Structures are given as C-alpha cells and as structure tokens.
C-alpha cells in the first residue's frame, strides 16, 4: 500500500518536474531571444506591455526560467552543475541573468571594435577605413612607445642591455646550493650595481665608440622598466630597515624612522617628483649635477620605501612573541634573530602586501612626465597630439592598459607562486 502510494507520488512528481524543466528552459531562452532582438534587430516583441515593464521582460523571463529549472537533484550533469554554480537562489539567478545579458550586450561591439572592424594593414592614417580600432597607429608609433626619443639606429643598445640584465637576474636559478646564502646580497647590492654600469655604459654611451644619448631622450616602455627596476630593488631593503627602525628600542633610530615614514607617506608622489626635479638642484653646490633620471628614481624609491616599511611592519607585528623569546633564549642577538627567525617569517606573511605596493609603484611611474621624462603613457600623450595622427587616443590608452595589465598580472602571478613556494604549515 505504502509502496504504491510512494510510486504514484514519485511519478506524479517526475511528470510535474519534467514540465517545469521544459517550461523553464523555454522561458529562459525566450528572455535571451527577446533581449537579442531588442538589441541587434531593434524589434520589441513585448511592445504591447507598458514601456518600463517591457524593458525588464528579458530579465524577468530569464529569472522565472531559472527558478523553474532549479531542481534539487536531476541526474542530468549539465543541469546540476548549472544549478549548483549560478542558480542557487532567486537572487543568484537574477545576478546570473544580469551578467549573461550584460555579456550579450557588451561582447559583440567590443569584439567588433577590437578585431572585426579594426585596421592593421598600411602605415598612414588613411589606411584606417573601418569603424573599429586603428591599430595602424600603434604599429607606426610602436618604436616610440617602446624606446621613446632614443635614436632608431641605437635602439639595439637598449635591447642588448635589457637582455644582459635579464641574464644577470636569472643567475639565481642556476646558483649552486653552496652559494645560496649570498643570493640576497647579490640581488640587493651586486645586481643594481651591475645593471647601473651596463645602463651607464651601453644605453647612455659616450665611451667605447658609442654615441652619447642624454637621458631626456630615453623613454617609452624601456624607461618604465628602468625606473621600476631600480625603485623596486632599492625600496625593499630600505623599507625593511625602516620597518625594523620603527620598532627599535633606540629612541634616535625609532623617531627618525618614524618621521621619515610619516613624511613620505604624507606627501603626494607628484609633488615629490616635482621637488626632485625643480627644487632639489637649487640646494646642490655650484657645478654639481645629478641626472634627472637618477633624482626621479631616488624620489620614487624613498616614497615607496615608506609604504613598504609599513607593510613589513604589519608582518613583524603579526608574529607571536614566542618566536622572539625562542630566538633570544637560544642566545641570538638582535640581527641574528631578525635575519634567521623573524624576517623570513614576517616577509612570507606580507608577500601579498608587498606585491600590492610594487604594483602600485609600477603604475605610478607614468607620473614622471611632470619632470619631462616620457615613459610609455607619456609617449602616448605626446603621440596623440601629433597633427598627423589626431583622434586615436582611445587606441593608445587601450594599448597602454594592456601593457600595464600584462606586467602587473605576471607580477601578481609571480607573487602567488612565491606564496605557495614558501608555504610551510604553521
């Protein structure tokens, strides 16, 4: 008796379920169809409804459709997956539908602009006949975006230097275990010196038969890299020292670190750059001259070091006191304790924060335009005012956006891999 009842119930239930499933799918696609017709054919199939309701019909259809196909367990793999991931409640269903409709709305025009209606062949403005992006502009100016005003014939010097620096950076991967302890020394002190010498003699020139190219002519992405590279390398150890200094028991060290940090955190970068370029030379004794680029790198380094210091201090503060106790009880002094016990743990904790600061630093570099140094965004701004190429600022900014995204995304990925590498369960 009971079994019969149950079977009856089950089959009834199943029938009902199948109907709701079919109706739901139909409604959902009706919503999408309505939306597509509205958007791409300018036809409104719900014209008989009042305007405001008619506007929302696609969304309403889609949400009701999703509601009907929300079944606890159907046995159909796709359906279950869909329900689990985008259709757990009416609110989620509404959000999912909004996103789907938004994608349908935004993707085709974007793709058209980027690819289908875009032009890349040719090398004059007149080659751009389509309604989309004019990649010809980027192609023609590419050299400038990469190397700034650096003479075309000499650009191989930048390439050679960058490849050499990259090789020197890669040393860390090939070093034998016995020398591993010296790597941080190498990266923070030797590598910057080597790179500086390379840049000074090859990119700057003036000796070994190479033509002198003044720093004002450097620019584009290569300048972005140079400024970021030196600032990143120097701001990290400096920030570390400041963070330790701020926690020091010695009043002089403590308060000088504190005021340094608070000063640099309190002033905007653009002012700092401006001061470094305009005011600073006035304080120098007659006849001394420090290159604009060096002043800018120093300014950015000091500025970002203050931020890095606070990030690292956060990590130091997060360590339990027991770690300090244990290190002290083993007879380690201040420096041994910090180098072997405290900093390795604290720095591991702050990898996300450090990555954050570094990404911000890279994205701050375009500000060096205020002192007349034109890195990639500066070159774009220059190029867009060229009378022969007016009206392509959009392409330029999209291009710069993509470049910065690639740099920052790869750094962010790298920081994630570092986090994984140094993960030991606490």
């Amino acid at each position, binding site marked *: 008796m009971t079994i019969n009842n149950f079977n009856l119930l089950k089959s009834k239930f199943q029938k009902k379920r199948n109907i709701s499933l079919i109706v739901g799918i139909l409604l959902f696609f009706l919503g999408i169809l309505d939306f597509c017709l509205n958007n791409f054919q300018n036809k409104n199939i719900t014209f008989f409804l009042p305007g405001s309701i008619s506007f929302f019909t696609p969304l309403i259809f889609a949400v009701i459709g999703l509601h009907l196909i929300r079944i606890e367990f159907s046995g159909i793999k796709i359906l279950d997956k869909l329900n689990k991931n985008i259709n757990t409640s009416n609110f989620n269903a509404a959000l999912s539908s909004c996103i789907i409709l938004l994608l349908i709305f935004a993707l085709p025009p974007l793709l058209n602009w980027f690819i289908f209606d875009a032009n890349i062949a040719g090398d004059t403005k007149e080659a751009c006949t389509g309604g989309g992006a004019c990649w010809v502009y980027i192609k023609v100016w590419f050299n400038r975006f990469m190397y700034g005003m650096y003479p075309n014939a000499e650009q191989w010097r930048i390439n050679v230097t960058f490849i050499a620096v990259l090789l020197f950076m890669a040393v860390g991967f090939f070093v034998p275990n016995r020398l591993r302890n010296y790597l941080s020394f190498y990266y923070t002190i030797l590598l910057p010196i080597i790179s500086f010498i390379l840049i000074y003699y090859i990119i700057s020139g003036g000796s070994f038969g190479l033509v002198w190219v003044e720093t004002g002519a450097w620019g584009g992405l290569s300048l972005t890299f140079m400024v970021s590279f030196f600032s990143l390398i120097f701001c990290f150890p400096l920030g570390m020292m400041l963070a330790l200094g701020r926690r020091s028991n010695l009043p002089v060290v403590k308060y000088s670190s504190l005021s340094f940090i608070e000063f640099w955190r309190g002033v905007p970068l653009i002012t700092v750059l401006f001061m470094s370029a305009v005011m600073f030379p006035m304080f120098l004794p007659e006849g001394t001259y420090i290159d604009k680029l060096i002043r800018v790198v120093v300014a950015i380094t000091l500025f970002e070091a203050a931020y890095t210091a606070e990030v690292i201090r956060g990590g130091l503060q997060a360590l*339990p006191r027991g770690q300090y106790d244990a290190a002290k009880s083993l007879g380690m002094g201040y420096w041994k304790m910090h180098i072997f016990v405290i900093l390795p743990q604290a720095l591991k904790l702050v990898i996300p924060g450090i990555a954050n600061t570094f990404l911000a630093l890279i994205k701050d570099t375009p500000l060096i335009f205020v002192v007349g140094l034109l890195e990639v965004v500066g070159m774009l701004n220059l190029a867009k005012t060229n009378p022969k190429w007016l009206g392509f600022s959009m392409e330029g900014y999209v291009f710069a956006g993509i470049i910065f995204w690639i740099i920052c995304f790869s750094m962010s990925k790298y920081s994630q891999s570092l986090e994984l590498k140094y993960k030991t369960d606490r």
Partner: protein
Amino acid sequence: MSDTIIQIQKVNKWFGDFQVLKEIDLEVKEKEKIVVCGPSGSGKSTLIRCINRLEEHQKGTIIIDGTEISEDTKNIEQVRADVGMVFQQFNLFPHLSILDNCTLAPIWVKKMSKKDAESLATEHLEKVQIIDQAQKFPGQLSGGQQQRAAIARALCMEPKIMLFDEPTSALDPEMIKEVLDVMVNLAKQGMTMIVVTHEMGFAKEVADQMIFMDEGMIVEKATTKDFFANPKSDRTKLFLSQIL
C-alpha cells in the same frame, strides 16, 4: 659555594603598578632539580623568564654562573646560550625543518660547522626519539613531538641549565607522558633544571627541591619529601589538596 650556579637575591618586578615578584630569594646548585608550582598568575613563569632576561627585573640581583644579569650585561647572549629554555607553546621556528631548528643556533651563535651541528642535532633528536621526523616542518608534527623537538633544540646549545616553562600544559593528556619521559631522562643525566609544572608525579620522581609560589612570593620551599608529606603553610596544603 662554588657549585652554586644560580643565585637570586631579593628580586622584585613590577608590571606597571602590579608587583609580580616580591623579594624572591633562590639558590640553585649544580645538577639540582627544582620544581616550581603554584596557581596561575603567581609569577612562576615570570621568575624563570627573569633568569635568562626574557623579562627584566627591577630590583635585586640574579647571578648565573658568576655573571650578574642586569641592564649592563654585555654578554647577555652568552648567558642565554648557556641557559636552555623550553616554552609552553613550543615556539619552534615554523619556517625551518626540525633539523634546521636544531642546528640554527649552534651554527650561528656557537659558530659550529654545519657538519658538526648536524651530527650534534642528530644525537639529541635520537635522544628525544624523533630522529625520523628530522626533515619535517614543525606544523606537520603532533604537539608532543613538537615539544620534544623544542627540548632537543635547547639541548643542542649544550646548556648548563635548562628552564622549563609549563612544558606540558599545552599538550593532550596522551602526549604529556612522552615529554615527561624525555625530561626524566634528562634529569637522570645530571642536568641542572628548573621546571614550572603542575605535573606532581614528575615532581615527586625527579625534584630535589619544591617551591610553591603565590602572589609573587615564595610561600614554601622544601625538599620534595617534606613538601608532599608535611607542608607547612595553609596555602600550600590547600593547593596540594586541590591538585593531588
């Protein structure tokens, strides 16, 4: 007198207005084992943390093996190297393997060669029976194993004195025994030990002297036998009746 290794005279310590240690006098001879007990907040941890100056005392003198511990102590690191300490929360270095935990201080403080330090560490890890865990990280070990590793780490400095700050209080009951066994063995080998603990069974087995502390004072100091058989003060009697 020559075999007195720790001498504490009239030591006072305040945390702000609160006095944690009041006129503490204590003398420890070489190879002596002392167990300190008492209710929480009675200052027993603070007392042994003062011995290697993880806490600073404000009044009185502490002399360790002929060196007075004070603000002017230049070689506080030298004293600390001679005084091993084991903590309630183990405090192993989580970013280093057990072996590296043990070799770190011998290599960098005692300037031992890596090879010597490793063989020394292996020896001590064998003694505490976790040599098979040597390559693991602290986070992968049980509490009892971590505490034994911490003991081995302290022993690798070859200290003259070992301080134990409630070494079993953070452990599961099953793991307490494995740690206590290690400590009993250590006591039998003639180490000078000051142990803060509530493990009265351990105290009866190894302690030469018992110290009972309350409200920052040493209420009772007696040989182990006397302490348990006929405690003098009422406070001690009350404590013992609750704990035994």
